[in-house]
């Protein structure tokens, strides 16, 4: 096993770990808004780490540029979609969980 393979495996595993953390947060957090925190942040980072792991595994060539552009697009589109869902929930009056309330 080459060192580059080990590095790629570590990066891919980090990405997979954070994606899984996001899913756990989606199940564990109490209301709509905090769930958006878990999925919105962890998925953006996890996806970028998975793409970076693929780049390291394949080595540098012209497809690398396309993969990096995909991850830049993800970094721009992730916050926008999170924001759109949050605003839709806020405008239609989804209740905000306060400390001590029952889980929604």
């Amino acid at each position, binding site marked *: 096993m080459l060192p580059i393979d080990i590095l790629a495996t570590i990066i891919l595993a980090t990405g997979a770990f954070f994606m899984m*953390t996001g899913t756990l947060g989606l199940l564990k*957090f109490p209301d709509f808004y905090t769930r958006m*925190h878990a999925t919105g*942040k*962890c998925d953006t*980072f996890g996806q970028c780490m998975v793409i970076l792991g693929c780049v390291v595994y394949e080595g540098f060539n012209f497809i690398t540029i396309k993969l990096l552009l995909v991850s830049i697009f993800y970094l*721009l589109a992730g916050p926008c979609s*999170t924001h759109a869902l949050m605003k839709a929930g806020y405008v239609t009056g989804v209740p905000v969980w306060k*400390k001590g309330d029952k889980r929604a």
Partner: protein
Amino acid sequence: MSAMKEKDKMFSIVLTFCTLFIFWLLLSAWTIYLPDPYDFSKIARGVLAAAVVTALSYEMFVQDRSRKVLFNLGRVLPYIVWELYQILLATIDVAYRVFGVLPVDPRIIVFPTTLRSDMAQFTLATSITLTPGTITIDIEPEEGVFTVHAVAVEPAESLTVDQGMQKYIGWVYREE
């Protein structure tokens, strides 16, 4: 946009064309270079495509104060690096809250800013969403009022009390 000065127009066209052509080369260079290194008819196709798109869209791509775009790069690039570091911190922060190390105590905060231009407000909104513990819900573009959902007390206070990020983005876009 008809009031665009002749000099700015030339600058805008050249910048748009160079960006588009470099982008085209990056995306399709491997289909040109590998099979046949000296086939200029394929590169000519790229030049033609870049020229057509430039003619259609140079007015949108670089707005009238176009020289500021290059002028600002020295401040925008360090900001992007800082933002990538913040994304890492934000993910670790959420992981801590998921596994119960840090508390979850959500609240909605409303605060005014001094930023007025579209790009500055867009950058602040995206940065708030990417930095630890906060997500932008709504922007009032005329007054610069942001509605933000914070997952605990400390992220909320870093926006309302310290205001470090607003000042940083004001510095990046020269809007102090």
